[in-house]
């Protein structure tokens, strides 16, 4: 029990994020970058941007999933070590947004990956993105308390029913 508590504390205090744009218009990415600027100081919460998906705990996805990017998105997802969490940022990542029903667009991130938290907005403000990450942290803590270092049951089973690989 003690061990689970320590793991939960360390996971929720040191979330490293990796940022992936799967085909958005770039405004969401600018907002994600703005979130990481000194003004919002997310390092207070231990949040750090990592270049490598191998180091990341949370994948911040922006934009709709295009047919072209689907393979790459999956590859990046599979490169992440468990436990891994996905935050979908922006209307496009939620549902396809303005690109909904385009010939080359599959739809939101949850058509491909199990999404943990949805941050709406076109683009969402940095405050909203931080709020989204905090929701992921709560989920992380709950998972770690329940499963210790055993990763996540929910994602392994494809927790989200709309997932299609």
């Amino acid at each position, binding site marked *: 029990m003690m061990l689970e508590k320590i793991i939960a*504390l360390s996971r929720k205090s040191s979330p490293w994020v990796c940022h992936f744009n799967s085909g958005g218009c770039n405004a969401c990415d600018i907002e994600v970058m703005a979130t990481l600027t000194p003004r919002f100081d997310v390092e207070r919460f231990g949040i750090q941007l990592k270049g490598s998906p*191998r180091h990341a705990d949370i994948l911040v996805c922006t934009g709709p999933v295009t047919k072209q990017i689907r393979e790459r998105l999956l590859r990046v997802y599979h490169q992440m070590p468990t436990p891994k969490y996905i935050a979908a940022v922006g209307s496009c990542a939620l549902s396809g947004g303005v690109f909904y029903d385009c010939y080359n667009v599959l739809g939101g991130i949850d058509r491909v990956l199990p999404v943990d938290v949805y941050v709406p907005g076109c683009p969402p403000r940095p405050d909203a993105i931080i709020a989204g990450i905090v929701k992921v942290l709560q989920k992380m803590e709950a998972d770690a308390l329940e499963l210790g270092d055993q990763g996540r049951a929910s994602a392994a089973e494809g927790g989200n029913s709309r997932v299609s690989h």
Partner: protein
Amino acid sequence: MAIIDDLFKILVFPGFLFVVNLGLFLEWLDRKIYARLQNRVGPPWYQPWLDILKLLSKEDVIPEGASRFMFTWLPVFYLAVTVTASLCIPVGTYAAIYSFPGDLIVVLFLLTLATIILFLLGWYSGSPFGRVGAVRAVTQFLAYEVPLVAALLTQALLADSWSISLVMARTTVGFPRFVVVHLTALAVALISLQGKLLRVPFDAPEAETEIVAGPFTEYTGRRLAFIRLAERTEMAVGVGLVSDLFLPFPARLGVLGFVISAILVTFVLSVLRASVARFRIEDTTVLAWKYILPFSALGMVLAIIVRG
């Protein structure tokens, strides 16, 4: 009893636990100063320890293209080498666990070995980013190693000894006469230490905006935790070495003086990190060979002249 005493020295103080924790503390200090210089609050003091704990509890992936043996053992060797180097560093007046005439050379050699391991880490990780980072690490090594050794050699020349503890005891001998030489060597040592520790402006080997994370790109979980611990230990060893050899406090104030000087040196390194941008790898080499090396050679010649 002697065995228990030795074990305590090696494992707790001034050995393993002390250096690793000093390294993590210096990491926090560095991040905090960096944050304050950007006018933000920065991470809480326990952040580096939690980062390590989190990495330890994550999944451990061995990529298909990587060499299994190297991938498993290199992080361990990396930590082993840096911790071994720390055994020769006296903590203020508290003698080093293993000290003999010439331990300065051994520490320098072990730190060089750490860079070679860094190269192998990247080379065998089976990722092109890792390889580019590895080659850059070695290129940069050619740039900073000579000035670093020259700067430390200047101190050793002034003190007329290759033993760290003797040089430390003699840092203030002949005080006003040696000041210029001291400061020249200190400046060169600080700049090349920044390169040794792969920090901005010499972080081209792990430049996250171009080659993902350089040699560490493919490492996850506890392997990455080991690498981080090794890097922090390397930082503690480097900073400790410079404070022992150059600053007057460790020999006067003992352990407290050692920690104070380590904090001072880290402060300078952090301000340097916060105020400059990254050099391209060829600029690093040009800077080192055209400007820093002549400067350090000048320091050495001066040292020989003033000692007479």
